[in-house]
């Protein structure tokens, strides 16, 4: 791999042991992937922050880096935890788990990461077209590739962490324009009309595109919540998070019919089939959940308008960044008056909020996919509007 003089020096340890280890890892993985060089990044987002997920090995490595005086060189954000920092007792964790989680947070803060605890870092720093990033968290990776034309592969948490320390990532995959050119063309026999349909569409296109960049014909404006649902869902079925969506994505100029290998039409029957794979309609919901990915301000405003009270508890998850803005706008008070509970820093997928065998109604295909697998929770998929009284 070609390295600049500065990169060579980092690899030789001139900028400390943490930077050397980070550079060596990124270079070795890049070489294994066939990358010819590194590329400078503007923002790293680290997944794998919850102690329940990364355990003692993760804690020990992150503290190891912090003890080596690792410092990040770019803007850095981090993924959700397994509890809300302001109400940890509601999340069924032990004192040991709580204390170890705080150690992870402190080590990451010492390196310079912002304590964001969210899967929606694009609200905190909006990426621009063509910018290079190193992000973990598949839903965010898909969202910024699709909506902003920002360039990041779906990196693992450890890789994103190490790339923050050197401010670089291997130049491969979606960092290269040639890999962003669509190879599979999708059209639908219906107009997408809500978050559930958008999520199911992402789930299906992820499966059918088989790792290739997809192109989606679309004549209508998509709401932000639909794109988030689509992006989160495609991350569950594909390693390539990029779909260029007409009227959504800035890179429609990359479309060239000579590169299209397959043309696929998706019907309502396909949506139905995907729906049946994911949901369990045999039982009534006991709780309603919105916030996978973490809700933005627009979605919170919409919830205030559409939810008129409900006979089941409604739980909503967001980031503390958005929460603070929602307090300013008086949204939090309005939601609480409707009996909606807001949690931050975490979500039901990475926490123990829902007990196994609970039936949860959600609008998120990703939540449905992972709640079933990771939490043994049953789900029903339904849109916002259908939840009100």
């Amino acid at each position: 791999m070609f390295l600049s003089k500065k990169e060579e020096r980092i690899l030789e340890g001139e900028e400390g042991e943490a930077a050397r280890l980070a550079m060596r890892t990124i270079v070795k993985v890049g070489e294994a992937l066939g990358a010819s060089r590194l590329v400078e990044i503007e923002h790293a987002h680290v997944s794998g922050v919850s102690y329940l997920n990364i355990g003692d090995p993760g804690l020990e490595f992150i503290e190891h880096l912090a003890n080596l005086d690792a410092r990040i060189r770019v803007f850095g954000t981090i993924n959700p935890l397994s509890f809300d920092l302001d109400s940890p007792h509601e999340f069924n964790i032990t004192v040991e788990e709580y204390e170890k989680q705080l150690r992870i947070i402190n080590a990451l803060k010492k390196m310079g990461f912002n304590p964001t605890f969210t899967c929606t870092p694009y609200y905190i720093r909006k990426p621009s077209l063509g910018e290079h990033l190193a992000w973990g968290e598949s839903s965010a990776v898909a969202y910024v590739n699709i909506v902003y034309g920002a360039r990041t592969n779906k990196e693992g948490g450890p890789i994103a962490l190490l790339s923050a320390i050197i401010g670089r990532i291997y130049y491969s995959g979606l960092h290269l324009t040639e890999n962003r050119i669509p190879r599979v063309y999708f059209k639908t026999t219906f107009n997408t009309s809500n978050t559930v349909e958008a999520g199911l569409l992402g789930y299906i296109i992820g499966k059918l595109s088989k790792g290739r960049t997809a192109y989606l014909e679309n004549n209508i404006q998509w709401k932000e919540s639909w794109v988030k649902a689509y992006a989160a869902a495609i991350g569950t079925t594909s390693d390539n998070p990029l779909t260029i969506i007409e009227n959504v994505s800035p890179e429609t100029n990359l479309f060239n019919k000579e590169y299209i290998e397959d043309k696929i039409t998706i019907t309502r029957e396909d949506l139905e089939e995907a729906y049946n794979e994911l949901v369990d309609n045999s039982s009534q919901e006991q709780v309603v959940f919105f916030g996978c990915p973490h809700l933005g301000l627009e979605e919170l405003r919409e919830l205030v308008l559409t939810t008129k009270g409900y006979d089941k508890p409604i739980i909503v998850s967001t980031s503390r960044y958005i929460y603070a803005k929602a307090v300013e706008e008086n949204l939090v008070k309005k939601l609480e008056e409707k009996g909606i509970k807001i949690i931050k820093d975490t979500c039901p997928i990475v926490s123990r909020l829902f007990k196994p065998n609970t039936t949860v109604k959600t609008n998120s295909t990703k939540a449905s996919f992972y709640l079933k697998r990771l939490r043994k929770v049953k789900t029903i998929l339904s849109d916002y509007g259908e939840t009100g009284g």
Partner: protein
Amino acid sequence: MKYKILHARPILFDREVIEGTVLKSSTPISPLGDINPKTGEIIDPRSTIKGQKITEKILVAPHFRGSTVGSYVLFALAKYGTAPKAIIVGRIDPMLVAGCVLGNIPLLELRTYEEIPSNALVILKKTNNEVEVHVKY
């Protein structure tokens, strides 16, 4: 003593020679969940080497799988002194490569990994562009 020589692609191999006994899994390994880093034991109930220790072995597998957090587990193996001497896989992936860098574990890619018998004694020898895997019979 007879030898069979296989030619592997060195992904991480800074030493001249490594000698050891093979522990071969027919199932892919997810470091997170399949290995207890404190003991080096394979705890995946579906693994063909369930209950065996990878420590000080030449660990051979089709490929690795699972959470990217697996890289941290490979680092932990080194820290707890439970790491294998080397890992040989049919196909590498970023999580495995990163983990082997962090854990300082030599790593080879060998498409014909299946030709290495279980429990064989092997010598890994560095040459110009590759690593020879000498299998003793």
